[in-house]
């Protein structure tokens, strides 16, 4: 039961705004700053620079929205399918070391249902320096998830494959006694570093990417992801 005893009261922020702020705050504790990138991307930044060439089976791992109008140079444009292109942009525009997160909207050509939407939010992370390893990835994510989900939270790594990291891992997080898949991660592939003008012989590190929506739904007890973008006031006012 909602009880309101003031004649006026402030409006509320959307839970996604709150979640993103929370993530920014927790990662800032470990020295991560925020980077951003455009939602309309080039095929190069979204795929090729990330070691996902056209005509390669790995391309099937992402269902892409393509735009009708080509870029000025005749290349294809798309809506970014992940926040990973921001890594590429950041590395090309700055010198190493890098310690950034990049929350942002991404798009996937998927049928929508209670747990799938065509637009959703991801958060990307990148830490490249002289000797950043998977042990650091574990340390960072353990700190972050304990802050977000409580001291009982735990994480585990499982082997997987993404063309832009090697080794690649799936990260599960233990929340309320259950293991849940939350993000993919791994050591940035030397080819990707080279594509960005970073020498893999002197620099290395990890990248991670995960959806924020599922985490939000867990924390806020939201049953259907489509509520987040419906604009229905009953959603945000009831949170």
């Amino acid at each position: 039961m909602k009880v309101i005893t003031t004649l006026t009261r402030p409006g509320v922020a959307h839970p996604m705004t709150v979640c993103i702020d929370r993530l920014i705050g927790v990662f800032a504790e470990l020295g991560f700053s925020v980077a951003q990138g455009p939602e309309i991307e080039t095929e190069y930044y979204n795929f090729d620079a990330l070691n996902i060439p056209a005509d390669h089976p790995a391309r099937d791992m992402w269902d892409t929205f393509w735009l009708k109008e080509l870029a000025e140079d005749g290349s294809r444009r798309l809506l970014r399918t992940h926040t990973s292109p921001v890594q590429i942009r950041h590395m090309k525009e700055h010198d190493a070391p890098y310690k950034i997160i990049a929350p942002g909207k991404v798009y996937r050509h998927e049928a929508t249902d209670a747990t799938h939407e065509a637009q959703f939010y991801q958060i990307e992370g990148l830490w490249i320096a002289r000797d950043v390893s998977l042990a650091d990835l574990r340390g960072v994510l353990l700190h972050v998830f304990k802050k977000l989900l409580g001291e009982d939270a735990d994480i585990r790594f499982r082997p997987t494959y993404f063309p832009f990291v090697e080794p690649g891992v799936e990260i599960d997080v233990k929340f309320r006694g259950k293991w849940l898949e939350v993000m993919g991660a791994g050591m940035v592939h030397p080819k990707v570093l080279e594509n960005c003008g970073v020498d893999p012989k002197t620099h290395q590190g990890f990248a991670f990417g995960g959806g924020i929506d599922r985490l939000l739904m867990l924390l806020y007890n939201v049953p259907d992801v489509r509520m987040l973008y419906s604009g229905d006031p009953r959603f945000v006012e009831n949170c």
Partner: protein
Amino acid sequence: MLYSKKILQTYIAEPLPKDEELVERISLYAFEVEGVEERGGDSVFDISVLPNRAHDCLSHRGMAREIATVLNVALTDAAQPYAALEASTDDALLSVTVDSPAACPRYSAVRIQGVKVGPSPAWLVESLAAIGQRSINNVVDATNYILNTLGQPLHAFDVSKMAGSHIHVRFANEGEKITLLSGDEVTLTSDALCIADGTSNALLGIAGIKGGTAAQVDVETTDIILESANFASSGIRKIARPYNLLTDAAKRFEQGLTPELAHEGLAACAKLILELAGGNVCAGVDVYPEPQSQKHITVSAEACNKVLGTQLSVEELESIVRRRGWKYEVTGNTLTIAVPKERLDLESEIDIIDDVGQLYGFGNIEARPQTVVGGEVAYPAANTIRAALMSLGFSEVYTYAFRNEGNVEVANPIASDKAFLRSTLVTGVTESLEKGLVYADEVCRTSAAYFEIDTVFLPEGERLALAFGARDTTKKQTLARGLMQQAQDALANLGVAVQGDTQVVEVLLDASWSETISTAPHFDTDEQRVFAPFSPYPSIIRDIALFAPSAGIEEEIAARIVSAAPELVRSVRLFDVFTKPDEARTSYAFRLVLQAFDRTLTEADAAAAMEPITLALTQAGYEIR
């Protein structure tokens, strides 16, 4: 891919653990297991094999080898490589011409005469059924069985339906047609590599993808050519996808397969066909002009430790490499590994390190403690705008980027009315306002006031925009207009100039608003908000107004209402309070929203719900108006 535990077991020397344990070991050290199903005494595992391991693990033998490595158990003889089939070459009986070795690195085949095509034995029918495959006849089933166990696609042609016994691997002529085994007729381009009858030039199949009806094996067949070949991945992918022919064979070739597997597949399949259908091998051919070379990769323990964050010694590295069954040489602190030919994914040192890490167990890598830094945090600058509007009572919405109009068009929309990226936030906010008015009482607001800050897509590019609006239930919209004026003033103070007298106003924000700054407020307080589900059924509003002797006791009165109120009361909101100057009493007005989750409420329900409330308030000494 589906894997039968029974078939996997034939390759592994020790009994496999129980399903649950096996799933866990595979998931933590090798692949993601999507599910396990019990099927007539067998367990069928659905294991996700991603593109980097499609080369060697899209087969029961390949997966069994990986599982044996993970469990650290030995393999059976069945898992050992097959020796090449002994078959004499005889051009008169069987010959092959390959136009493009680049497109077809290897073409091996045997001719088997005197086969009797018929139904397959029960064990084969069951094995195929377990992994979701239909039985067709003994010859076709044999090729299917070898595809699923060794990972080598094979195809059988009926020689009596051919003009001779010469196979010509050539590209199709532009526009050339073929009727596939499925019955579909396909028109090909000159990109499509085909298997043709070298004598009549007729097409017998699309290479590595699907066979045609021309030389189809049926119950009359007695004389076959069994093909075991290798086709370049890009050529396969170019044809299989656009033609929607991603067959089991195509899936393997398009992800890359070692040509070294072809002779094993041929030997194993020929043997099986002879067993099931009789006959004898009268000729063989192997066109393999450039055999795959042996690759070597050097790895050091130091390099492994640097990436994984471990402290492996050279000896520990060696033991992991030995578990994988790789041949290697040690030079000081480095190992030079002879890369198994089926492992097309192992290209450089980092790939070896990944395999080492997997077997070591990524779960065994300890966390390196991180340093917590203090200092200011930079939050989104737009939060300043959010905070200003929220303090006036505007709440934030997020709406869809896909609309049925806009400047930027999507080539492959998910729906015809979602073919554009929005060029304005006004549509979305307007829809929220409309809903906000309908549900105002349910969300405990006097008026609807909403805003959105997000990307809009204009001809010149993406821009961050702000749209906000207010509406109230009165005709004159006085409350709403007041809110809009306050909002415009607040925004002007922040340097955001807003024009417009409409219900929803939009403004494009400067690039600086997209940045993060240390002076921006943030909304992640400690309080954990939880979503309260709302009912789809209509609500009933009941207002209750009363006089109380004192001012400032709204909370106390509300508490009494709450403790007397039944479940049906979803909210209690103070909407009016005044003390007349010359009176010693204060008037309080509360709005109650009654709603059920399972039905529409009736007047009787409302009356029944209000009774205990009015009773409690009267007993507390308040005068109900």
